Each structure stands twice: as C-alpha cells, then as structure tokens.
C-alpha cells in the first residue's frame, strides 16, 4: 500500500505501471496521461477522467488525497477569483490622464508665458518632471504611501518604453520625410552621380552606384562572416571546454568592438601590409570582421536551446557527432540561425566607420569589388553630408538614408518572421509536407 500523502509523480508512476494490465483499450489514455505530466501539472479531476481504469484500482488511496487537497478551498468559502496582474483600473488611468493634462497646462503657462525659456525639448523635459510630481501628488490623495510609490514607479518605468518607441518612430519618420523629395525622382534609382556637380538639382544623377556597392559589399561580407561565425558558434555549443570559454569571452568583447577598429585593422593588414588598393573587397572584409561576432554570438544562443534529447537520440541510433550536428542540430536550429544571419546583415549594411577607411570614395558606378574605390550607401551619406555638405548633397544624403532605412526595416522584418518559431517548431508549410509524406507511406 502506498502512503496516503504520496507525491504526484509517484502516483503517475503507479498509474502507468498499472494501466497496461487493464487491457488494450486503455493504451491511448495512458499515453495521454503521460503527455499531461510531461507538459504541466494538471488538476486531479481532469486526470481522473483521462484515466478511467485508475478510478477503481486506486480507490483506497484517492479519498485521502482528495481531502488533503480540497481542504484549504473548502475553508475559504466562496469560489476564488483569479487575481490578474498587469491590469489597469479606471482610477489608475484617470489619474494618469489627469496628471498628464494638468502638467501640460501648467507647463504651457509657465514655460511659454511666464518664464523666459525656449526650445521644444526643454518644454517636454519640464512637462515630464512636473507630470511625475503631479501624478505622485494625485496618487497620494487616493492611496497610501506604498501604493502611491508603486504607481509612480510603474509610470516612471513605462516612460522608458514610450521614449524608445518615440525615438524609433521619430528617426524613421524624419528620414522618410526628408528623403522623400530625392527618392521621388526616377533617376535617383537608376543613375550614378558621375555627371552631377555639387549643386546639381535632384533631376540629375542618383545613388545607383552606392546601392550596387552596398549589395556587393554585403554579399561578400556575408560570405566571409557567416560560415566562420556559425562554425565558431558550433565550437562553443557542441565542443565546449576551457578554450571555448576563452573564445566566448573574446566573441562577446568583439561584439561591442568599435567598428572603426575593424576598419583600422583591414587598413593596416590589407592596404598597408599587403599593398591592396582601397576597394570594395577591403570594405567587405572590414564589414565581415564586424559581422562575424554578431553571427557567432546569436547562433550560439540558438544552438544551445536545441534540446539535448534530440542529440542523444541521434547518438543512440549510432550516428557520429558530425552526422548529429549536420542532420539533427543544424536543421532544428535553422530558423534561429537564419534570424542571426539576417540580423547581422542588417547591422552590416549600415556600417559606416569600417568602410570609411578602406573603401575609397567614387561618384561613378563600379561593379567590380576587387579594383578601384567603391561607394556604399552609408559611405555616400557620410561624404554627402560631412565632406560636401551642399544643400543638394544633403538632400541626396537623406534620399540614400531613406533607401538604407527601407532595406534595414525589410531585413529586420524578415528576421522577425523567421525567428517567430522556436527551434524545432515546424512552420505550416513544413507541417503540410510532413503530413503528405506520412500519407504516402
């Protein structure tokens, strides 16, 4: 006889041991019960229905177990309602809105009328400080000090998130607005700047050369950095050991390496030491150096969450380590690896500092990355705004910024779409294909 206060896993084991004896019909329900326990601890009631055979078999145990579990609920009286965290109440949101409006009015009067301040930014900084003060005062009128402090903290933390959203929208929107006048001209997309002077209107020339340069440099950089990055990540995740720890520390440090240093490195090695002239190839190597640690770090995170049981299953079937990695680990982590690569590409296409030192600058279209200077979009913006700085060039610079932001947004969205599924989780298409395959068999 098992003890009355047997723990739940013990009961599950008992149940599984018992059920096969009670006939072939109860087989599916056993599997179901085992599945339940694998996912989460279910309530007793549900489980009893799932395993009908168990009810009679374990009758002497059950009442005691039931009673001990049901006792606290019976004492409490009325049915419990679940407490929902992360919920807003009417008082809360009213206080919030009222404080925001009141401080806005007060700041407007003080800032614009009474005190000799100026500047949009100062207005909002004053508004925010006043808002927090008013919000706390209003909360204090309704609640005790602990609760008021709690609410103030919530609002203060939330404003960080709001600020981030505002900044992103502002930057993207500002680039789009300022860049729209340049990108509206068709020649902006189809011409290089070869025949445009510093003050030529927007109807002359475009940034085709920079777009071609960006694409080629990014492709080459991806070619260098992705194989090395993913192999290094496999080393960290699959082999491990003391050296892996050192490599991981270095990779983490290199993720935040100043991108300018990558440019200096390529400048020193390829250009000064090997004597290669400034070219798209050099730029691609520099971008690759900055992308590699990003790929390695993100891939390692993905490879680590591949379930160990899958690897063990593969080993148990007798496959070697590289077969396991090739046929089990990498396919399982495919979506995550793709996300890592695409995110690194989004970083790589916007890199300016490394390219600045090693790519040279040209106004003409150069499709050969191995000879002659090559301009990429960020490099073009840098030169247009910082070096030339004429009105027409700044406008073109914003146009190039428009293109760059669109590309980065596109890459980012792709990465999000791929990365939406966890490792090993199938997409709808894969699921359909699998269903077809099993049907054929």
């Amino acid at each position, binding site marked *: *006889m*098992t003890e009355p206060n047997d723990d739940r896993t013990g009961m599950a*084991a008992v149940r599984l041991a*018992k059920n096969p004896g009670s006939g072939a019909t109860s087989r599916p329900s056993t599997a179901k019960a085992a599945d339940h326990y694998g996912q989460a601890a279910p309530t007793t009631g549900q489980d009893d229905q799932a395993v009908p055979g168990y009810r009679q078999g374990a009758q002497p145990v059950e009442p005691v177990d039931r009673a001990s579990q049901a006792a606290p609920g019976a004492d409490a009286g009325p049915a419990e309602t679940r407490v929902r965290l*992360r*919920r807003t109440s009417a008082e809360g949101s009213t206080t919030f809105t009222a404080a925001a409006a009141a401080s806005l009015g007060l700041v407007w009067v003080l800032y614009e009328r009474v005190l000799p*301040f*100026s*500047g949009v*930014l*100062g207005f909002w900084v004053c508004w925010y400080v006043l808002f927090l003060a008013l919000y706390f005062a209003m909360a204090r009128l309704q609640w005790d000090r*602990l*609760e008021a*402090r*709690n609410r103030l903290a919530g609002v203060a*933390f*939330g404003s*960080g*998130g709001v600020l*981030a*959203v505002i900044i992103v929208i502002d*930057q993207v929107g500002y*680039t789009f607005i300022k860049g729209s006048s340049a990108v509206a001209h068709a020649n902006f997309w189809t011409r290089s700047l070869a025949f445009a002077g510093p003050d030529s209107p927007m109807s002359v020339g475009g940034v085709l050369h920079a777009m071609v340069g960006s694409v080629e440099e990014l492709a080459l950089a991806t070619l260098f950095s992705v194989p*090395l990055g993913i192999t*290094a990540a496999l*080393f*960290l995740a699959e*082999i491990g*050991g003391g*050296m892996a720890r050192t*490599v*991981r*520390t*270095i990779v*983490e*440090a290199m993720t935040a*390496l*100043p991108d*300018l*240093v990558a440019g*200096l*490195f390529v400048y*020193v090695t390829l250009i000064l*030491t090997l004597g290669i002239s400034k070219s798209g190839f050099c730029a691609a190597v520099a971008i690759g150096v900055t992308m590699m640690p990003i790929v*390695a770090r993100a891939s390692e995170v993905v490879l680590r969450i591949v379930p160990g049981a899958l690897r063990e299953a593969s080993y148990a079937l007798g496959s*070697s*380590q*590289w077969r396991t990695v090739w046929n089990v680990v990498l396919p399982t982590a495919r979506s995550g690896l793709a996300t890592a690569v695409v995110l690194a590409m989004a970083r790589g296409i*916007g890199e*300016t*500092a490394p390219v600045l*030192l090693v790519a040279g600058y040209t106004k003409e279209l150069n499709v050969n990355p191995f000879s002659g200077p090559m301009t990429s979009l960020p490099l073009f913006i*840098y030169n247009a*705004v910082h070096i030339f700085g004429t009105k027409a060039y*700044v406008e073109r*610079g914003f146009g190039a910024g428009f293109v*760059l*932001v669109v590309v*980065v*947004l596109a890459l980012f969205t792709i990465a999000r779409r791929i990365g939406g599924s966890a490792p090993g989780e199938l997409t709808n298409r894969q699921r359909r294909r699998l269903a077809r395959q099993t049907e054929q068999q």
Partner: protein
Amino acid sequence: MAVALTPHVQPGPPTDDVPRPIVARASGGDRVFRGTLRAAGIAVLLITLMILIFLILRSTSAFGRAGFGFFTTASFFPETSNQFGIAALLPDSALIAVIALAIAVPVGVATAIYISEYAAHAIQRPLIAVIDLMAAIPSIIYALWGLFFLMPRILGFDKWLSHHASFIPVFRFTKTDTIGNYVGAMFIAGIVVSLMVIPIVTSLSRQVFSQAPQGEREAAYALGSTRWGMIRTVVLPFGRAGVIGASMLGLGRALGETIAVTFILTPLTFAFSIHVLEGGGNSITAEIANFYTQYDAKGVAALLACGLVLFVFTLIVNTLASIVISRSRSGALTAAD
C-alpha cells in the same frame, strides 16, 4: 493488489550511482569535424590577436616619436611636431561616453523593468521588437537625425541649462553667450550616442530581469509587498551584476562610436574642458575619421596609435563586462557550461 502498486526499484544509497565514464573513440569524420570547429574557434582568437599585433606593429613609430608624452600631451599635430598625444582626445571620448551612459543606463534599465515586469503580454513582444529595431538602425541614421533634427531643437534647452543649472560645474558656460557657441557640443553628441546605447542596456538587462526566480517573486508578494517593493527587493538585486555588465558593454559601444560623434562635434582646439555645453571638444574616433585621408605616413601611424589605445581600452572594458555577467548569479544560468 497493494503489493503490485509498490515500485520495483528500491532506492539504494546514492553513492552506488556513480556515472560510468563513457569512452568512445571518435571516428575519422568526427576528428575532421572537431578539428574544423576548433580551427574556427582559434580563427576568432587569431583575428582579435592579429588586430592587436598589426596595430602595435604599425604604430610603434608614433610611440617612438612621442614617447611617454603620447599619454600626457594635449595637442595632436603628429606631422609637424614630435609633441603629440591623446591627453585631450581620450578624456573627451570618455566624457561623451559618460554623458551617454548617464542618460542610457536609467532609461534602459527602466525600459527593461517595464518590459519584463509591467507590460501586458500584448505589448511585450512589440516593445521588444522596437528595442531590437533601435539597435538595428544604422549609426549613420542616428547621426543624420542628431545633426539635422536634434541639434536645432536642443540649443534652446542647452541655453536654459547653462543659465539655470550653472551651479553644476559641468553645465557652466564660459564662452560668449551666443547660440552659435552651443553648436557642436559634447553634450549633444553624448545624447545621440546614448540613444545607441539604450537598446544594448535594455535588452541585456531585460534578459537578466526575466530570469529572476519566480519563487522569490511570489515570496515577496506573499509577504505583502507591492510590485515596486518586489522589484526593489527581488528583481533589482538579482539583476545587479547583469545591469553593471550591460552598462559596461554600453560604455564600450559609446567609446567606439564614430559617425554620430564626427557629424556633431566641431573640433576647435585640443584642450580638454568639462564644460560640455560649449561647442568644440573632440574624440579619438572623430580625430581618426576626420584626418586619416589628410595625413602622411607619420600622421597615419599616430592615428593608428590612437586606434590601438581605443581598441585596448574597449577590449578591457568589454572583457570585464562579460566576466562580470558570467560570474554573477543571474549570468551563471545563461552562460553555464
């Protein structure tokens, strides 16, 4: 019946259950495979080492000319004089980074706490996406935004600060009080750099905060704590090392930021000044970006020496950061081997 229910396995003393060492000889394919992976790991180390070695080799001539004065001289005209150094450039870089961190760490940590503790599930994921997007926006876009959008709008605020907050020495304004003298100040550069550091601090801190043990959170609630009380006593202490590590990584990023700083600063003199609202000021990265094409071989060697200092500095900061993260209680869960 009752006998049948008893488990068959009698739990023996735990000392009997020592895992048997499994020794399997790797096949030929596996040896090649392991060799390849190890080579990739070594290649990563080698690249880092090569950056260091080549920068040292190419900058020795500059160090030879300037001697120890490289760290104590404030002016930087390496082509015409042997008296040049980074005594003004490095502190300026550090000051910009400090301004950036002073803004980015509070904002980043607040955002991280909001995402991990407050935000409803429906806005949690979009907000994380926004933070990731903020990290993905190229620095040249930040630079454009800072130069054309932020700079004209912030000058009034700068002036207000210098008039009403000048009791803080950093905000004192010693030049003629015209609006043009506020242009291109380190304060503005610091703000733009801080926006690039915010996503680093936020995403790392968020990961650490979300690992704070559920049991301890519930214990705090069970003792009657408010949510802020729970955060203060459970989440923040748990994530302290993570926040420190994240801030240090942010510092590394801020020190190395080039384009935004180059766009915004108007370098006038090589004199270090803590008055961050005044135009002027310099940084190692801006100096390299502005002069690498104009200098001859001697000058380039001096710029490479600057780059070497920057590299060593950030490498130390970043390595310390990742060690701090991995040694901490919260980091041990993620980086455990």
